[in-house]
């Protein structure tokens, strides 16, 4: 356990502090080492002014009425940094010994601190150009990977091509492969500007030449409380079409990337866990079956991890203490994508693992909460992180179809080349780290060129 230890002044301590000396000379002023307390020798003692109460007998720590502070050597105290044993017995013994020493004023916690995490509604941090740089898009493009002729299905609220063009994007578009549920009045590529258009824009960061396929599942006219919701059966229909598309491709050129920035916010929408009809925890649910089936046929499927992170969850989240990465978002055959900002800090709303179907979720992180499509003030949520990662996958598929590099192999390579964030190796905040196109391109250069498309 990291601690701050406050020592009383002594002439030697004061002189050492003025000289900017670190702990070795300071430690020599104590009677003897405190067993269990390990002082950080790199930490130069910090003089702490001593509060003086305005009135005799009053507490100097109430700060009202106003107190004065003394930096006089005979009154000041000094903070040093150290550690106590983590085991409760050792910790108690060290604390007892330390607080019994006359030269020790107190031992205080030194908790880890971090910059404030990005939360829903916060302004954008950085731009899509920054994200392109962080992803290593030039390295991918230099290796001939920009998504040319790779179909990327956007399972969302529909795409508005005119908006993408107004923002400088010029993606290929497959009307033939696009689809919308019955009752949707608008046509593929001409849906209202919204969430799906943001996702399509963000795919273009790494894969500007990918061929977009518009599956406007969340425009379903089936009952829902908001303008961008549908039922899972709509997604089953969309995936059935994708299964037909990928199965119809020549095996040697098979590639299809599927980007999904949606899921459940409320477990009450599902049968309870343990019920045979449950979706969130049940690999036998038809949607979880068709996801596995589509991946086995050669598709790369990416799902947003969700926006129910512990620090500042989306207001719609109703998971409480339960694991929010559930259903297909936690499927072992998909890449579950968490969100980090352009400073590589986890956004506070990004859902944390473990996942329900596969505990090792999220798989990795991608950038979000930047200014990009201008559909919203920020391309935010794990909704943006997912298509950012999908764009990288699509870029790779231009050169390496599923016959060369299976979806599982590509997921493993993405994990291996990710820039590790958070704890060493995998953790439930960032997965294996943030997707790194530069490292990915370098690793792919080692794949036998004759195996390429």
């Amino acid at each position, binding site marked *: 356990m990291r601690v701050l230890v406050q020592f009383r002044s002594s002439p030697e301590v004061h002189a050492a502090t003025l000289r900017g000396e670190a702990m070795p000379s300071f430690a020599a002023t104590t009677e003897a080492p405190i067993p269990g307390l390990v002082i950080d020798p790199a930490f130069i003692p910090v003089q702490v002014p001593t509060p003086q109460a305005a009135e005799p007998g009053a507490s100097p720590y109430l700060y009202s009425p106003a107190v004065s502070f003394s930096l006089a050597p005979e009154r000041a105290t000094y903070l040093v940094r150290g550690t106590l044993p983590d085991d409760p017995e050792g910790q108690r013994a060290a604390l007892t010994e330390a607080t019994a020493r006359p030269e020790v004023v107190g031992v205080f916690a030194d908790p880890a601190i971090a910059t404030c995490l990005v939360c*829903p*509604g916060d302004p954008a941090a950085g731009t899509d150009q920054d994200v392109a740089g962080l992803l290593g898009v030039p390295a991918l493009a230099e290796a001939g990977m920009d998504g040319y002729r790779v179909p990327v299905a956007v399972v*969302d*609220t529909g795409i508005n091509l005119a908006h993408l063009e107004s923002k400088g994007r010029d993606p290929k578009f497959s009307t033939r492969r696009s689809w919308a549920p*019955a009752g949707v009045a608008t046509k593929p590529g001409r849906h209202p500007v*919204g*969430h799906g258009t*943001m996702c399509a824009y963000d795919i273009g960061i790494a894969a500007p030449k990918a061929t977009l396929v518009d599956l406007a*599942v*969340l425009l379903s006219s089936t009952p*829902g*409380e*908001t*303008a*961008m*919701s*549908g*039922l*899972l*059966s*709509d*997604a*089953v*229909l969309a*995936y*059935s079409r994708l*299964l037909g598309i990928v*199965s119809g491709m020549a095996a040697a050129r098979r590639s299809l990337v599927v980007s999904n*920035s*949606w*899921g*459940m*916010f409320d477990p009450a*929408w*599902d*049968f309870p866990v343990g*019920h*045979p*009809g*449950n*979706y969130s925890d049940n690999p*036998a*649910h*038809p949607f979880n*079956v*068709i996801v*596995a*089936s589509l991946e*086995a046929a050669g598709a790369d499927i990416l799902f*947003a991890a969700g*926006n129910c992170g512990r620090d500042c969850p*989306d*207001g*719609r989240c109703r998971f409480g203490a339960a694991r929010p990465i559930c259903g297909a978002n936690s499927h072992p055959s998909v890449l579950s994508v968490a969100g980090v900002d352009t400073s590589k800090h986890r956004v506070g709303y990004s859902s944390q693992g473990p996942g329900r179907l596969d505990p090792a979720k999220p798989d990795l992180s991608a950038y979000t909460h930047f200014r990009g499509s201008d559909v*919203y003030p*920020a391309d*935010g*949520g*794990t*909704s943006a992180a997912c298509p950012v990662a999908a764009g990288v996958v699509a870029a790779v598929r231009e050169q390496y179809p599923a016959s060369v590099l299976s979806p599982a192999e590509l997921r493993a390579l993405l994990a291996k080349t990710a820039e590790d964030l958070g704890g060493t190796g995998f953790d439930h905040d960032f997965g294996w780290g943030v997707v790194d196109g530069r490292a990915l391109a370098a690793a792919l250069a080692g794949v036998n060129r004759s195996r390429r498309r």
Partner: protein
Amino acid sequence: MARVMVTLRLDPSQASVPEVLGLLGLAPDEVDPGFGVVPISPAERLYTILVDETAATRIADAPQVEGVFGNPRIEGFGPEAEG
């Protein structure tokens, strides 16, 4: 009435709404014809249909039925304000 998904194991020749109605003794208005009989794992000969909840309970023990499953709402992980 709420509809649920029913997973069926079928011979591909049986994978049509009229065939399924006959096999399971379902009335036409108990099945969503727009949804149809959707292949979810061709290799396993698994299909799913969308059926009224009460009808699903009635056919749950039929030999072709692999399970009855929920059809929960889904939503985009986008900004709250849009909703």
